[in-house]
């Protein structure tokens, strides 16, 4: 006992052998980029990918988003087989798409479909930053446009989760025009009284923030999400002035009147249900008589 007190502590850290490293499956642990805490990935996923210690919102894969919100078994996907072409014959574009398809197990940067959320029918579109940084090319524009048209046809709300670096360079001006196409579809839907809910997640920038992401009847965002038109570096180079620490965060946008609310991921389903409920109860049933 006493002897142990006097033994020297190791002055070096032991490095796990290659063999040991291989024994631990990749991705079992995740390190929070904000507070640096290391936690079990399964634990993180169970917590809707919100850091258990600092509440940092980790990017959420589209299928997890859908599962976390929609009633079990209610989701029916649209246009899952739609994929990009290479309209500009851009070097290496098709190879990059193929690599991302394999890596992310997604065909494109947005998943669309219909389902119910706590019983409320809706059409949902969820962008996924794991595929080409969620950038918008022809397929993203087309899938969103079709989803909005479907919501119009079914007479149900349209809910969109955005996560995108902006327009996709490799499809050039065709990507740019998707901004007009999606916005025009939303306008037609809106004219007929359609409800549009936009939830901006990290990151929502460039052409996506300057089109459908900003066009909700309600514009929400997740805490800490980066949202903006121009990139921070571009702005710093242009204006040569120091930008505030929280520049272009969800909280910054809220402060400047650009958002309805910033909503914690754990409270999202409840908030969305509330909005859907208020829009369902239109008061045309003569409520004053009851």
């Amino acid at each position, binding site marked *: 006992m006493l002897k142990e007190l006097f033994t020297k502590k190791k002055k070096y850290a032991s490095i796990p052998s290659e063999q040991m490293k291989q024994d631990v499956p990749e991705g079992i642990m995740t390190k929070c980029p904000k507070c640096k805490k290391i936690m079990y990935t399964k634990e993180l996923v169970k917590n809707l990918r919100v850091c258990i210690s600092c509440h940092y919102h980790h990017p959420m894969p589209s299928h997890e988003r859908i599962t976390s919100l929609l009633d079990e078994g209610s989701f029916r996907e649209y246009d899952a087989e739609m994929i990009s072409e290479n309209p500009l014959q851009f070097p290496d574009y098709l190879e990059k798409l193929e690599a991302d398809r394999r890596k992310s197990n997604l065909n494109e940067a947005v998943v669309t479909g219909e389902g119910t959320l706590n019983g409320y029918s809706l059409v949902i579109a969820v962008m996924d930053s794991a595929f080409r940084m969620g950038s918008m090319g022809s397929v993203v524009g087309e899938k969103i446009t079709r989803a909005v048209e479907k919501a119009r046809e079914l007479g149900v709300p349209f809910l969109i989760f955005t996560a995108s670096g902006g327009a996709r360079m490799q499809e050039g*001006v065709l990507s740019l*025009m998707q901004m007009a196409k999606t916005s025009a579809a939303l306008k037609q839907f809106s004219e007929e009284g359609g409800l549009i809910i936009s939830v901006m997640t990290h990151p929502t920038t460039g*052409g996506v923030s300057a089109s459908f992401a900003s*066009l909700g009847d309600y514009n929400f965002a997740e805490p800490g999400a980066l949202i903006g038109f121009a990139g921070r570096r571009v702005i710093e180079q242009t204006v040569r002035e120091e930008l505030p620490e929280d520049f272009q965060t969800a909280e910054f946008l809220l402060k400047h009147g650009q958002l309805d609310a910033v909503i914690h991921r754990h409270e999202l389903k409840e908030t969305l249900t509330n909005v859907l409920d208020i829009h369902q109860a239109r008061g045309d049933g003569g409520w004053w008589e009851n």
Partner: protein
Amino acid sequence: MVGELEFEKPLIELRKKISELKEFTKTADVDLSAEIEKLEARLEKLENETYANLTPWDRVQIARHPNRPTTLDYIQRLFTNFLECHGDRLFGEDEAIVGGIAKYDGLPVTVIGHQRGKDTKENIRRNFGMPHPEGYRKALRLMKQAEKFGRPIICFIDTKGAYPGKAAEERGQSEAIARNLFEMAGLKVPIVCIVIGEGGSGGALALGVGNHIHMLENSTYSVISPEGAAAILWKDASLARRAAETMKITAPDLKALGVIDEIIPEVRGGAHRDVDEQAKAIDQVLKQSLKELLTLDGHALVEQRYEKFKQIGKFTFSRDYLGVK
């Protein structure tokens, strides 16, 4: 000549040689008329070749020419009774966009466009034609007013892009652009958009949701500037020339991609060579556009505009199902 462009250098040298020879014959007692004639024929041939085979990068240079005619140059020549209307009624006045009411061949119209400056002083006032949110909100205010009074809208597009600045972000640059796309899609009056210089990204598109979109022959329209594309794709802004070719940003490219309706031919060497002539070429196409669109009612105009944008894009279907499991 002021503002000669790089690809025009061989022409300039040849012109210089001819004028030197002419000068020489005046003083010396030698007949060089045959040589001069030969050189002039060669110049003519070279000019034809140069201007008929402009590369995308040559066109970018022409589109950015310091003397390239601006929105106000064309407004002055194409319209009468122009009254400029200022301010967005929300925050301020943005001189990077001009707009107002006017008559086009007697027809009341609303005309709006990006406005660059002619010199440094004016460029500072107009922020080099790069609008803030208030510019886009002013444009939207004027478009809504046009709709109220049933006036067609003509938009001139000429900007490097929406201004990337702190104040612009604070006041909602994204929202301002998005709102314009959304509202323009629903306007029940004809909208004709003409790209006259650089059509830079979302900042250009915010005046670009038209029934007809035309481009001057040497103008460009792109998702990002060639320099920006080169910086992002190859981490090297000096590869802009290569990016200009890869990105397909010229009028013929956009016509082939099905994005624009007409290419408006330019005066040889570029619009800056003869603004009056250039205005006439625009006049012809604009007149044709309006004639066509004025036969449609409000509902049909909105439908036509929606269908036009809906068909833009290229995609296919894969047999491998990779959807949500």
